[in-house]
């Protein structure tokens, strides 16, 4: 087997916010350089937590996370700082700074981390906004943007420093069909044009399969299945099948645990 | 908001605050009084300093010409030692007397200087020899009662004669 160059590697990670709740149990994922990899699963399965682990926001109880072959250590602030400059994250609802304009939002990482002159910053910001198709919206205030537009501005901000790793937290959530298409298209094009690696956390199977090279399915903190889009669609695993096909009942039950209905209604058995 | 505008407005705010502080210090408080003019110190000893406080005024002919710098106790003579700071512009003869007076009936106490007739003036560090202590209310009442008692006793004896 040829050694794949993984930009990010998660090895046997177990994580829980406190002792009572374990979010992830012994999960291992690889994210090869230049690929778009999707992490799918239902809400609360631990997908977003994986992004936080990669970004060094939280530390796993066991296992390791490697970024460019270096371990991610939340306590080493200098290393963490350097790591975070190499990645960009698109939050679920944009997480734009509401007190700044669209332009100012995209300029933020440039102003904070570089000593570039204002004229250069302006050029870079306009180029990034152009890449997401919103150069004309630069002077708008965040409140004036629609959901889809806000998401794209946030994307422009995430790529302002040309990161090697771009992470997307539910980028397709709540978008209309046109914005969906635009966003999916952008993610793929950006990835290929800049040579970056992208990780998409989403539960939108169709959009993800259209653009990703590989996908993992997380269920109850474990990897339920992984493979290319074709492999997953063809999978016989019941958990994978239920999720991919969107079947209402299966390993993930339809009914929330409750007494038998006869008992609840007081019917004679 | 334009950066320049914000900076200007904050500057105005700070200036307003500073002005308010200056106004309070000068108009409302006693900063304007001569405390920072050049002064010289003299001492005065009293049997009883009464309710004299530090920074109480030193007046002569009703005009404030100094402040009380410190009040301490001399345990050799068992007297109160008051250090006065007087405005350098005003010289007083060496036989000036210092009295502890009350402003109004129930007001704060201050020191009043009454000039003497000597040619020589008080030098820094000199001591005022003639002093009159504060009037203690209890002594005054006692005197009045005693005086009243003596008077009525005398009249009684006269009447009884």
């Amino acid at each position, binding site marked *: 087997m040829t050694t794949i160059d993984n930009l990010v590697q998660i090895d046997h990670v177990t994580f829980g916010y406190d002792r009572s709740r374990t979010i992830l149990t012994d999960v291992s994922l690889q994210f090869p350089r230049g690929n778009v990899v999707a992490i799918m699963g239902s809400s609360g399965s631990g997908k977003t937590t994986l992004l936080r682990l990669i*970004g060094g*926001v939280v530390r796993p109880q066991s296992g390791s996370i490697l970024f460019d072959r270096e371990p991610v250590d939340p306590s080493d602030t200098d290393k*963490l*700082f350097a790591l*975070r*400059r190499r*990645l*960009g*994250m698109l*939050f*679920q*609802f944009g*997480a*734009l*700074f*509401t007190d700044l304009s669209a332009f100012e939002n995209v300029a*933020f*990482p440039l102003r*904070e*981390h570089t000593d570039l002159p204002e004229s250069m910053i302006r050029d870079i910001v306009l180029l990034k906004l152009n890449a997401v198709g919103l150069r004309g919206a630069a002077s708008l205030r965040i409140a004036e943007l629609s959901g889809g537009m806000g998401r794209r501005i946030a994307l422009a901000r995430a790529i302002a420093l040309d990161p090697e790793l771009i992470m997307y937290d539910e980028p397709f959530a709540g978008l209309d069909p046109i914005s969906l298409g635009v966003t999916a298209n952008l993610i793929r094009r950006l990835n290929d044009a800049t040579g970056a690696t992208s990780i998409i956390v989403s539960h939108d199977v169709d959009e993800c399969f259209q653009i990703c090279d590989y996908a993992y399915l997380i269920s109850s903190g474990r990897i339920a299945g992984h493979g290319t889009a074709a492999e997953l669609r063809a999978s016989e695993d019941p958990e994978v099948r239920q999720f991919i096909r969107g079947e209402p009942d299966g390993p993930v039950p339809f009914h929330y645990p409750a007494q038998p209905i006869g008992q609840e209604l007081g019917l004679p058995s | *908001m334009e*950066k320049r505008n*914000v*900076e200007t*407005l*904050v500057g*105005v*705010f*700070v200036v*307003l*605050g*500073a*002005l*308010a*502080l200056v*106004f*309070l*210090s000068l*108009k*409302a*408080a*006693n*900063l*304007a*009084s001569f405390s920072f003019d050049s002064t010289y110190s003299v001492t005065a000893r009293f049997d009883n300093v009464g309710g004299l406080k530090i*920074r109480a005024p030193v007046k002569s002919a009703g005009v404030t010409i100094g402040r009380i710098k410190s009040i301490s106790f001399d345990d050799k003579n068992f007297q109160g030692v008051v250090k006065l700071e007087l405005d350098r512009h005003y010289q007083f003869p060496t036989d000036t007397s210092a009295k502890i007076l009350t402003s109004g009936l129930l007001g704060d106490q201050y020191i009043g200087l009454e000039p003497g007739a000597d040619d020589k003036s008080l030098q820094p560090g000199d001591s005022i020899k003639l002093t009159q202590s504060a009037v203690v209310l209890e002594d005054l009442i006692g005197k009045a009662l005693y005086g009243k008692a003596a008077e009525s006793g005398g009249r009684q004896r006269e009447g009884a004669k």
Partner: protein
Amino acid sequence: MNPLNVLAALGARALWLLTSLGHASLFFVELVRHTPAALRRFDLSLVQIHAIGNLSLVIIVTSGASVGGVLALQAYYALDRYGAAESVGLLVALSLLRELGPVLTALLFAGRAGTSLTAEIGLMKAGEQLAAMEIMAVDPRSRVLAPRFLAGIISMPLLSAIFSAVGVAGGYVVAVKLIGIDSAAFWSQMQDGVDVFKDVGNGVVKTIVFGVASTFVALYIGYESDATPEGVAQATTRTVVISSVSVLILDFLLTSLMFSTRP
């Protein structure tokens, strides 16, 4: 009711209180630790001083003038009975400088600036803005919290000075212009009785302490608030209550320290 349960509940509550106190203290230490960063990025603090200080001026000035005027009015009625009406100025000035200026400014500050700080920080946290900053390798404590903390500490003394000054002016208008007390007597009585260091100075010290306390409370409660509309609403109410109570308790402590009847 099982007495053991009650005891356990009480113990749990006490423990929660203790941990909250510890958590809050650590937050305070972090705020102080990042204040030098706020000084270095003074442009950020400047914007906050504008938001906290300048925009509070209207309420401070109107309240100050009203309080000063009312004080003069009420004081006159009381003092006139003892023939001491000319001391109105002194009473107004001392009340404002020592107590009402610092305390009322702090309470108004808690209501206006404190709640806006709490809501802002709470909503920023809810909208993941602080998390976004963190992942962009920008410390939100230096960039968002510390400048607001610094701005609060700087704004409070200025606002309080303006409050007291406007109050004295308001008292002057009522006492001299409306009631007819002699202007010279008004000012001279005041100047005789008000000491720069004791009254004005101590007042300034009080406002700095109040500024630190109320800004810290506002920021902390905002930072720890729930990311829901109800959560933010509850948080702003809590800010006003806790800020006000803290200010009043601190006022009592400071007053007993500063204005004790030492010789």
